[in-house]
């Protein structure tokens, strides 16, 4: 009989009076993979963060090996054997890959407690090997692209021999191909007795590897079942899992003249002669796996990374963009994957929207508060953000809402070229539909978009053209009839 390694009982949690978890109970058995699924914003992460000690619950109890635990924080959780990994866990850009992999528990000599670099390197190397991912351990994390950082995060998961592993949406932004080895290793870990909570959107994967599946909606567990073939077929009917989606609201586009051309762009870290062009009102996608250079390309075009060779031509004029401020002056906007990077968390929506165009709401260096508010209101109203939220710090808003505020900021500063890195990742369905429509509408108005994404369906559904990037160059360009999911997958794996 399997023993229950942990049990969360009747957990309730509210934020600012809004209930997020309603008396939800969930258990985990030793050596099992328990998948937690559900739309974004339903409370999955909150529940896991309670288990991991980051947040305390308002009501409810946490049992470990049958023993009730007194309230604990995240450091005590690690000592209990609970490890929590989310996309922002491996995230100190100025530290090395090796240091990031062992942020909270760098191996120490058992007797002297001196840092044990030998063991750390061995374990890290072994993990990277299992993932078939090569990167120098001493390299600065900040020099890696977003997808590569994720692979480092996956490798760090494999290094931890903890009792309970909580993986919160760790597979986002990586393609099937990259994740193959990871999931294989995860199963190996499970067989060694590690118990795993897997929070994920990838339903197909869930049915392949999970032992138990729980669906959460509206802060409560809607159902929890053992995984089986029969169950899978039943669920397919109900949820209609579709890999090929026809639901993208793409409007026919009439692109104008070329607004951006990149010629043989090189930089020290990743770009090896990138060529691309972008026309007015076009939505162009860039698909690439980890290490392809797509993040570096985005950052270089926005002046955050230095380039050493090649030309960037904006509307016929060659330019050198050496800083974000310069990029902004050239009317280029940038939305990174971590939305928070473009917003100031403690400032409210109105302030964040006018952030990049303070001149537009000032009279001779004095800020006109009324004008500021009405300018921001123009966008907030249209994007459907409720009035009472306008003056709250943006960190209190949902991901989808934050994304809209960020878009508004760039619109308000008259951006003509928007570079988006994974714009809809971790967004709930309704927000995704909104974002797709907003992009389409803005493109119709003449704004050009360059979208970096790992979501093949999204790129095929929303873009006029898609470049497939590999090894720092554009390996393929697909458009029109040839722009299909099948073709993109073929290009990626060839």
């Amino acid at each position: 009989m399997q023993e229950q390694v942990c049990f969360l009982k009747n957990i309730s949690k509210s934020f600012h009076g809004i209930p997020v978890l309603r008396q939800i109970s969930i258990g985990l058995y030793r050596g099992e993979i328990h998948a937690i699924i559900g739309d974004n914003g339903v409370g999955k992460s909150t529940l896991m963060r309670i288990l991991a000690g980051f947040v305390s619950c308002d009501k409810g109890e946490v049992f470990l090996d049958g023993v009730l635990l007194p309230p604990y924080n995240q450091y005590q959780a690690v000592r209990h054997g609970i490890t929590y990994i989310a996309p922002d866990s491996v995230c100190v850009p100025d530290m090395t890959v090796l240091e990031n992999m062992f942020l909270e528990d760098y191996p120490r000599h058992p007797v002297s407690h001196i840092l044990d670099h030998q063991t750390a390197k061995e374990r890290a190397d072994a993990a990277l090997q299992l993932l078939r991912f090569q990167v120098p351990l001493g390299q600065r994390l900040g020099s890696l692209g977003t997808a590569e950082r994720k692979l480092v995060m996956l490798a760090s998961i494999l290094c931890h021999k903890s009792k309970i592993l909580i993986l919160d949406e760790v597979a986002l932004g990586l393609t099937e191909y990259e994740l193959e080895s990871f999931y294989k290793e995860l199963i190996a870990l499970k067989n060694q007795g590690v118990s795993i909570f897997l929070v994920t959107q990838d339903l197909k994967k869930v049915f392949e590897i999970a032992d138990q599946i729980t669906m959460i909606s509206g802060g409560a567990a809607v159902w929890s079942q053992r995984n089986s073939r029969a169950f899978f077929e039943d669920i397919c009917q109900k949820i209609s899992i579709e890999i090929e989606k026809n639901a993208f609201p793409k409007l026919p586009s009439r692109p104008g003249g070329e607004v951006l051309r990149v010629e043989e762009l090189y930089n020290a870290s990743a770009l090896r002669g990138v060529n691309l062009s972008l026309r007015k009102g076009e939505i162009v996608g860039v698909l690439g796996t980890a290490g392809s250079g797509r993040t570096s390309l985005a950052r270089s075009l926005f002046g955050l990374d230095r380039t050493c060779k090649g030309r960037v031509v904006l509307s016929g004029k060659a330019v050198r963009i050496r800083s974000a401020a310069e990029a902004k002056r050239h009317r280029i906007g940038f939305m990174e994957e971590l939305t928070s990077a473009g917003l100031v968390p403690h400032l409210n929506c109105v302030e964040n929207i006018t952030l990049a165009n303070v001149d537009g709401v000032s009279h001779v260096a004095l800020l006109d508060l009324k004008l500021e508010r009405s300018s921001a209101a123009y966008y907030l109203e249209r994007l459907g953000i409720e009035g009472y939220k306008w003056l709250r710090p943006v960190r209190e808003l949902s991901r989808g809402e934050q994304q809209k505020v960020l878009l508004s900021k760039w619109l308000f500063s008259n951006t003509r070229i928007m570079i988006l890195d994974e714009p809809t990742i971790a967004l709930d369905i309704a927000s995704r539909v909104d974002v797709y429509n907003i992009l389409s509408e803005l493109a119709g108005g003449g704004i050009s978009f360059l979208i970096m994404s790992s979501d093949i369906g999204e790129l095929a559904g929303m873009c006029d053209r898609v470049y497939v990037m590999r090894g720092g160059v554009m390996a393929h360009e697909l458009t029109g009839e040839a722009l299909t999911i099948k073709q993109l997958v073929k290009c990626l794996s060839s």
Partner: protein
Amino acid sequence: MFAEQRQQKIMHMLEEYQQVDVSSLTSVLSASEATIRRDLEKLERAGLLCRTHGGAILAENNSPVLQVIAQKDYPRDSEVESIGKTASRVIEPGEVIAIGSGLLGLALARNLGNDSHCTIVTNDAMIMTELLGYGQTGVIMVGGLVHKNDDAVFTSGEPAIRMLEEFSVSKAFLSVDGVNTEAGLTIQNFEYALIWKKLMEIASETVIMAMPGAFGKRGLVRLVPAKAVQRYVTTGSVNEEFKRYCYDHNIPIHLGFDL
């Protein structure tokens, strides 16, 4: 040219042609649309003409048909306009489409633009009049029994349905009063149901236009299930459940945000 001269020219043209439209006035008089509209408003206040959508007719014109059609006070609700604009973007140049009767269909017609080169089949007299202003579009008006209500002047009945059978269009833009995931698409006007369904039949793709408030409502006359159509057009304020419904059922939903 001074305002008076412009206004005199407008009256001359009216006397000669019986009706004028804003777009040709802007080119003939080399003035902006806003200026022409202000001129027309002034002349209307002076009782010399009646404004119609897209233009004007002489005030003493006794033609009853034109008087009925020249509704000066139709609401130009911003949501209605937004839906009309978004819907117009769904159309590819040169397409053959059908536009169903109603305020949203009228907004779509208003937003078609001069370079669409489309052929339009419609059973709504106000939409027909609106489209007459655009030289590039071919308009086919479906004949039948004429009905007039607050929103529209349209034809229906056996002869209209028989006539529609002659045609085939790539997209039909139809409006509804209620969209409910269980009850389906519904309208209030029973007279309109048969011809609505016929318009859907002759089209390869059916595009439903509806106000955001219509989603969730259950009207009187049931038409088809909500997932039986190919596209939806409304504004961004429609409820979240419906956005998820469309995503789950693979139906593109076009939302206007008016940014």
